[in-house]
């Protein structure tokens, strides 16, 4: 695969708090900020780090289902609400279910590469707490194939999809080691989240995290093979960053020490109407990671920071295998080895991941890239990773649906 035709940088990252159950200030009975609040908070948080909003050429906004969660479409129209300087500038909304954020990153990157823009404000947002989880499950099920899957599907559609994967995986690789790996994943993610004041689980005070993670599933009330701790939460929030060319960085007044560079990427789309070929593997994730490795000539051994899409603990393990960090069937063992811990060899989701930080669905891919900016530029504060000089690259994988819409991106600190 060809290289990127020119250098593309990311800078000025900003995450809002991931809001929902778990945050002490969250009260489902009280009114909450709407989607425009999150978009403007994140957008203004990013713009505050540059010299002037007028230097932004375009906007991209990713979101999954605001049309149903918030009865709101036409989201590109909120970009000018962030700053009057953005009025009449081009903006595009993209959607790829939970992988929408990754899609926004690629769209912004391609816009810079097209040379039609030098700076692109990139935002990802979702507000889900407008409905109860049981109705949210209906909405999120739209990431699958409605016509062939919804009627037969579970009340908790997506948890059940990954519960089914977990069930097959248990049969193949054993229940005990897998369950233990999932519980350890939960423990690691919550411990990471406790270092990140914006994480939904920042205030989590469960004493025995591993014990909680080992809770037996309750199929009567939920799904067959997952407990509630295996699941990312229902979240409201947004993230923003700016894509820029070399020229763009100059115009924004951004020093390169505050930016990271895209080294390469892989983007894959799988047929939504087909069931997974092998439930124990994330084959689309694997393909996207392989493409990114191919473009960059890098491999897992070069990655010193990993951001994976752990919408469920089992998905975290499968992603480690799909991206080549663990052999097939050895994801749980890798987690158990401690290598994925914040102080491990391959720090993974140091800000808490989807399990600990939260999962504002259409914004998560952008959030992952913001965390890569913060980590590689040394601005992650409490959850800062010590980047190993032998592994100077960060990789993020954004996944949508049941491993259908995947973007992998590899970054390094800008030079």
């Amino acid at each position: 695969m060809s290289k990127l035709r020119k250098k593309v940088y990311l800078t000025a990252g900003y995450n809002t708090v991931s809001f929902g159950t778990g945050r002490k200030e969250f009260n489902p009975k009280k009114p909450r900020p709407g989607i425009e609040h999150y978009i403007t908070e994140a957008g203004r948080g990013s713009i505050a780090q540059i010299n002037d909003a007028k230097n932004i050429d375009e906007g991209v906004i990713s979101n999954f289902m605001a049309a149903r969660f918030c009865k709101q479409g036409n989201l590109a129209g909120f970009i000018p609400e962030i700053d009057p300087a953005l009025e009449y500038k081009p903006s595009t909304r993209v959607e790829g279910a939970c992988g929408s954020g990754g899609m926004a990153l690629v769209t912004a990157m391609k816009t810079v590469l097209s040379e039609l823009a030098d700076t692109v404000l990139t935002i990802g947002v979702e507000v889900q707490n407008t409905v109860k989880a049981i109705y949210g499950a209906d909405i999120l099920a739209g990431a699958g194939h409605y016509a062939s899957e919804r009627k037969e599907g579970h009340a908790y559609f997506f948890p059940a999809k990954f519960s089914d994967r977990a069930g097959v995986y248990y049969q193949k690789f054993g229940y005990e080691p897998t369950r233990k790996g999932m519980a350890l994943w939960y423990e690691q993610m919550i411990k990471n989240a406790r270092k990140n004041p914006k994480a939904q689980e920042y205030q989590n005070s469960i004493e025995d995290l591993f014990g909680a993670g080992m809770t037996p599933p309750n199929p009567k009330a939920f799904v067959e093979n997952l407990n509630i701790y295996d699941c990312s939460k229902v979240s409201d929030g947004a993230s923003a960053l700016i894509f820029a060319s070399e020229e763009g960085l100059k115009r924004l007044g951004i020093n390169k020490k505050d930016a990271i560079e895209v080294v390469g990427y892989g983007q894959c789309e799988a047929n939504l109407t087909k069931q997974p070929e092998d439930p124990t593997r994330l084959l689309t994730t694997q393909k996207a990671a392989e493409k990114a490795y191919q473009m960059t000539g890098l491999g897992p051994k070069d990655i010193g920071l990993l951001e994976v899409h752990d919408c469920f603990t089992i998905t975290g393990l499968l992603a480690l295998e799909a991206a080549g960090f663990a052999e097939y069937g050895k994801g749980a063992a890798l987690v158990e080895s401690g290598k994925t811990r914040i102080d491990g060899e391959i720090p993974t989701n140091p800000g808490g991941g989807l399990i600990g930080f939260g999962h504002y669905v259409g914004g998560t891919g952008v959030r992952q890239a913001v965390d890569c900016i913060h980590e590689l530029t040394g601005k992650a504060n409490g959850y800062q990773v010590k980047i190993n000089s032998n592994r100077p690259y960060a990789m993020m994988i954004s996944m949508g649906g049941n491993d259908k819409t995947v973007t992998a991106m590899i970054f390094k600190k800008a030079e």
Partner: protein
Amino acid sequence: MTFDERLQNVAIIGAAGKMGSGISLLLAQEMARLKNRPENKDKNYKLYLIDVNLDHLAGLQQYLKSQLVKAGEKACVMLRQMYKDREDLVENQDCINQYVEDALSFIRTGTDLSIAKDSKVIFEAVLEKKDLKVDLLKKIDNLCGRDTLYLTNTSSIPINVLNKEANLNGRIIGFHFYNPPAVQKLAELISTDSTVRELKDFSMELAKRLNKKIVPSNDIAGFVGNGHFLRDGLYGLREAKKLAKDYTLPGGFYIINKISQDLLVRPMGILQLIDYVGVDVFQSISETVGGYIPGEDLKDDLLKKMYDKKVLGGQRSDGSQKDGFLKYDKNRPVGVYDIDKGEYKLFDPQGWSGEIDKKLGEYPTGFFAWRNLVADPKKNDKLKTFFQNLRSSNTLGAKLASAYLKNSKEIGEKLVKTGVAKTSEDVNNVLLNGFYHLYGPINDYI
């Protein structure tokens, strides 16, 4: 007649009251579940909800709708199974809406008893007044067939009295739900020597279907639950009066409510519980039970005084707490009633109530509030340690609480001794499941 056949036609009398509405909800849910079984598709289900007040019946319909939505949301995994053959019901929302519609479709409300003439099961949940219950039971039994079974939610009137005076020949049983019926796991079951076998079996099966824990009680006024609650509450009032000498009566109320909640590690203090049940209801229980147990003084003049001043507690239709012995803001006590002045004295941590707190003394080490222990798997060990410390503490609060615990234990033991409860375990089960206590009154803590 099988259990399922009987549940095709049910009536609830007093359906719009606090207990009746909960019972209506539980029955509607179970009947909706039955109706949706493939083999019952063509059967005709009817749930008649009868009450004297049309406005209350309208409120009941609103309540049922909102509660059925909540129940449907909670049981959606099961609902999707139930509606798996309905091609038109795809999303959770579709299934929940259908479930609510199905349940409401067989409900008929009215003020006229005659609408229940074909019912095979009748629940009675009217006011706790014997003559009213007897009168209604007689009237409706004249309309219904001789095979109709009656379940009464009375919490204090002996079942044999209702059976005899309404001439029901053993077709009545006490099936005493706890408030709120949709939430509380407990039901006391009270049969008499003449209760027909089919009714006993029906009641056991019903409890199973409604996921209720049955505790049997003998047919002695007040049964186990109110047998304990009444005496426990009266003890609290009498202690408050003793304390009034030094702390005034409102001060006594404050102390008794506080120690019975905090130092007894209960979900609410005894006066708050009386307010929750309703001062008038508590008084009515006191008079009813007192009437059947002549040797024991089960009345208190404070109840009459409160009743005369129409300060009655109880809840509004939205579930919020009305003022009674205590004044409430957002369901939390914020003041206490001064009967002589006819007004509330607000708690004042910097003033009078703060002074009393100081006199009650520091809480013994190991203290946890009820809400902090309720989900704690190590609660028994923690309670044991705390109560040990309570016993050895010399503060006023600890002494009052120890005496309260001792009295509560004696009430429980007496219920067993006098044959109201069969075992100590039954007494403890009632308090654990019907009153949300963390421990039974008959324990080794005291």
